[in-house]
């Protein structure tokens, strides 16, 4: 009777306190005997267990070694890269064409190196930068093909019944 009262008080105590209490109540209950599993014995979220750090470090080192070997041996096909250029992010491969709305200080036919690389991927591995990859690791180069202007885009504002209209032509440099 006293044991049942203690168990009930402990269950009620669990309602007020957080999961911090959970271990102490379980250990004392295990000392007394088996307590039934209720909806409040364990927290409602699934228990998360991370793998052992030492084993994980070994596994990571193996994977990194494999990828390094693949890169050194050149066992990758077509590579793609995610590059931050002209305030936009582009996913590019070789023989790709990009059009940007900006002025570059390079002439037509110049080679350009894009330095802000966020991600490089091949078929079997990906290198994810946090946030950027090193400059010695990846090299992305491009050629400037042409410098044009866009077709004249029209910006128009109009309010009805107020005799207000404004029309402006805008040509962007591309």
């Amino acid at each position, binding site marked *: 009777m006293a044991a049942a009262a203690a168990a009930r008080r402990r269950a009620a105590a669990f309602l007020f306190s957080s*999961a911090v209490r959970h271990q102490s109540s379980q250990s*004392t209950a295990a000392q007394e005997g088996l307590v039934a599993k209720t909806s409040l014995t364990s927290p409602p979220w699934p228990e*998360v267990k991370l793998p052992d750090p030492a084993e994980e470090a070994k596994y990571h080192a193996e994977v990194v070694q494999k990828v390094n070997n693949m890169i050194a041996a050149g066992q990758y096909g077509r590579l*793609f890269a995610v590059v931050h250029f002209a305030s936009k992010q582009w996913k590019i491969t070789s023989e790709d064409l990009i059009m940007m709305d900006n002025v570059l200080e390079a002439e037509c036919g110049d080679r350009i190196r894009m330095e802000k690389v966020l*991600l490089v991927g091949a078929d079997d591995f990906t290198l994810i930068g946090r*946030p950027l990859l090193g400059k010695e690791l990846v090299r992305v180069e491009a050629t400037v093909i042409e410098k044009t202007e866009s077709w004249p885009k029209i*910006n128009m*504002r109009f309010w009805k019944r107020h005799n207000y209209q404004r029309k402006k032509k805008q040509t962007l440099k591309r």
Partner: protein
Amino acid sequence: MVLLSAPRWLRSRLSDRFWRVQEVLKYARHFRGRKNRCYKLAVRSVRRAFVKSTKARKEKKRLLRALWITRIEAASLEHGLKYPAFISNLLKSQVELNRKMLADLAIYEPKTFKSLAALAQRRRQEGFLAALGDGKEPEGIFSRIVHHY
């Protein structure tokens, strides 16, 4: 031509009306009905078309972002993660890919997207464990609930 006196000005009439009208009608040639031929109707339609296109340029950015978010959500649900969890954990892991890129990777590079989802999931679990702590009471706390050992 230079019209040097007032009587000459008063008697002058438009000589390039055709080209002024064509400037407007050229933007209306692909419209439906009489507004692709008749100037009076075309002026109104062309004006509305220009205003709608200027406003649509701002809306397009919103629409595209919503589309990317939908696609990323669908792809991350395939890997068992919800969109807010995916994005927030990616940002916490200092991966600064924007939504356009994530949507493109989800479509064209599924293996890369899977690895990003795994990264986000792992960061999420580490965050939970860091929030939960040891599971022990802080020291020196005298709680009001009494244990009978």
